[in-house]
């Protein structure tokens, strides 16, 4: 793609212009090129998932729906599968994480570059199988694959989709494994744990979840697939099995996985806020520790998806308590970001606007999580639009905004170009407005009692659904704008200086923009803590 572009001779050799052949991309082991391969792939998958979202909102414009029920059921299933497994899980880790972790810690590459490339191919294989499943008519089980519907009743391509997810899971495992070893073993001299950027801390925590959680969903899907073929009864109550066991195994991964879908976003915001406040993160240790706390506690709360599913009331009580517990580190992060701005020097470039949006929307998403952790309220609102609104506030309002913010923040680093700032600010505002218009009405719909996964609905829910669909249209515009101006800026944007934001961090200060293949011309040595905007004298890596 870059081959058609005339480039001035003076440009230094970097990872992009070192070789233009297609082989140099498809067989690259450079983490930065792999990050870009991921960037394009997940953008494509986001597009597919987004089209399904649009079709769903179109259907819900009318109380009686627009499409056949089966068609709508496939829309929300494919939307969930594509967005969760093929966009949200790899989104920030596989693109920004892949690109930035080595330069941030002063490494020349990830610990296992070939495994990194392998993980992208595995992702593509999983994505292709899933797309084949979509083209052959899709799946109608919901992304949660609850048995016995998925194992004995659905007549769609459950096994094919499960294979796609199973394969993509290994891509996620390998990425996580690579990050863990890289952070442990590849740090530059002086890069102590106490000096690691918070982005790296967040990714370390994410990787733990990927490594420890993903294998469980892999084996669960294997068991589901064989159950669907053999009907041996492991999840089928008519044959002595317990369908709730499937839910336990499924959520053992899938609840921690929602932290895979937010922790990296928190990492991005932890970089953006100090940079545009020109001030070190308030409570660095607490933000770092809360990432780990979320990763560990996140494994202890999955039962809050089963409060009305037939789980023992006592187990529900324990899971409810632990769910409140996990809210504390999330709250701590929000408070610390806010406190970082206190007496700062705040400027309003696009990444910072996305960070504002993230903090606000994540606050709402997190607080509505408390409603769902409260047993008696969960009984009323679970499986309604309240839940839909809650997790979209976290995953779209949180993760997607952080992703867009991060892409804008590091766009000059990745491409060596600047994007049009005012257009980008406008897009950020449009995304924020469109998002709220889409999903805020869904909180109300949920408390009024509109169940999720409904192709048709009672007439009294009509008005709020129209609002939601209108908002989705605006949100769609907000997504398409960055796609266009960033593509334009990639080739035609003005050249970026080495460090356009005046940011701290090895990736901005010591690695050229864009970086050469091994990131650094001179092996970096770290002598100061992270975010040392005031240039304080080293205190020994506190």
């Amino acid at each position, binding site marked *: 793609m870059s081959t058609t572009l005339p480039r001035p001779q003076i440009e230094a050799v970097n990872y992009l212009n070192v070789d233009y052949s297609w082989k140099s991309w498809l067989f690259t082991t450079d983490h930065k090129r792999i990050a870009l391969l991921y960037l394009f792939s997940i953008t494509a998958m986001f597009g597919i998932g987004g089209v399904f979202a649009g079709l769903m909102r179109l259907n819900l414009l009318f109380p009686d729906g627009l499409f056949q029920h089966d068609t709508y059921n496939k829309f929300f299933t494919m939307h969930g599968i594509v967005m969760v497994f093929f966009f949200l899980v790899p989104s920030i880790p596989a693109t920004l994480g892949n690109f930035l972790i080595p330069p941030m810690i002063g490494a020349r590459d990830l610990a296992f570059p070939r495994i990194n490339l392998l993980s992208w191919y595995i992702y593509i294989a999983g994505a292709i199988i899933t797309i084949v499943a979509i083209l052959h008519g899709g799946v109608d089980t919901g992304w949660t694959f609850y048995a016995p519907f998925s194992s004995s009743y659905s007549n769609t391509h459950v096994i094919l989709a499960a294979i796609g997810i199973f394969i993509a899971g290994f891509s996620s495992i390998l990425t996580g494994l690579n990050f*863990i*070893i890289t952070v442990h073993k590849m740090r530059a001299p002086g890069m102590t744990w106490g000096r690691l950027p918070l982005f790296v801390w967040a990714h370390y925590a994410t990787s733990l979840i990927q*490594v420890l959680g993903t294998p469980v969903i892999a084996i669960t899907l294997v068991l589901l697939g064989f*159950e669907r073929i053999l009907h041996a*009864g492991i999840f089928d109550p008519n044959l002595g099995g317990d369908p709730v066991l499937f839910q336990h195994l499924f959520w053992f991964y899938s609840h921690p996985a929602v932290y895979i879908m937010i922790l990296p976003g928190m990492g991005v915001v932890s970089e953006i806020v100090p940079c545009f406040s020109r001030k070190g993160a308030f409570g660095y240790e607490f933000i770092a520790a809360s990432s780990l706390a979320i990763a560990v506690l996140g494994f202890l709360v999955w039962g809050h998806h089963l409060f009305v599913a037939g789980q023992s009331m006592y187990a529900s009580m324990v899971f409810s308590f632990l769910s409140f517990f996990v809210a504390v580190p999330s709250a701590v992060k929000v408070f610390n970001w806010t406190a970082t701005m206190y007496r700062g020097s705040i400027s309003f470039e696009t990444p910072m606007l996305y960070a504002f949006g993230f903090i606000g929307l994540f606050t709402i998403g997190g607080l509505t999580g408390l409603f769902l952790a409260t047993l008696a309220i969960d009984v009323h609102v679970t499986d309604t639009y309240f839940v839909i609104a809650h997790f979209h506030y976290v995953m779209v309002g949180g993760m997607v905004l952080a992703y867009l913010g991060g892409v804008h923040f590091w766009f000059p680093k990745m491409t060596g170009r600047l994007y049009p700032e005012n257009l980008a600010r406008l897009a950020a505002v449009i995304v924020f407005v469109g998002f709220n218009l889409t999903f805020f009405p869904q909180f109300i719909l949920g408390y009024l009692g509109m169940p999720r996964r409904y192709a048709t609905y009672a007439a009294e829910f009509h008005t709020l659904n129209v609002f939601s669909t209108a908002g989705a249209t605006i949100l769609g515009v907000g997504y398409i704008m960055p796609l266009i101006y960033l593509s334009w800026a990639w080739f035609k944007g003005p050249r970026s200086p080495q460090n356009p934001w005046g940011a701290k961090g090895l990736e901005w200060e010591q690695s050229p923009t864009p970086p050469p293949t091994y990131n650094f011309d001179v092996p970096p040595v770290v002598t100061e803590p992270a975010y040392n905007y005031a240039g304080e004298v080293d205190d020994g890596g506190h």
Partner: protein
Amino acid sequence: MADTNVSAAEHDVGLKHHFDDSGQQYESATLGMWVFLLTEIMFFGGMFGSYTVYRNLYPEAFASTSRFMNLTLGATNTAVLICSSLTMALAVRSARLGAKKKLIFFLVSTLILGIVFLSIKYVEYHEKWVDHHIPGPGFHYDLPQYYHQAQILFFLYFAMTGMHALHMIVGAGLLTTLIVMASRNRFSAQWNTPVDMIGLYWHFVDIVWIFLFPLLYLIGNH
């Protein structure tokens, strides 16, 4: 963590250029292997979890299946696998000493023992096939009151031992690769990381069997 004397490090055999020195590379590989084994623990963990749940729900039915398990073959296989773990450990030791012939001998022994294990497993599976103990439409169980519960146990039996056997087959492939590499003098006392890594993998697969044996064969043996 590591000094940055790149030019000196480039002389190390098998050193990838994004590492500073071979010590860092070796530690990364070992740690990476352990993290991979963590994922394997959780992968088998899902099945062990299902097993725990159903054994707790249906203790009598599960106990009744033990009379249809071939304890002799199961115990023999346990011994075979322990032997293969010994030869694998000795192979790793020989590699570290740079003793090529011993290394190849122990790798081949391990491979043979692995194949013996798989052959015995095949005999067992064949017995189950003859006895209609394969879960699914053709499943038959002599105690009709436990038909469904026993079918779940056999489903888990095949899932767990099948996944284990799959890991053995992968392990056998990896061993073959090691044997070829060793015979081409690719390993030395300084660089033998692949032998170490595959050794860890092989021992892990052995440990899985150490748990499968009592859980599947010894439930209601008394």
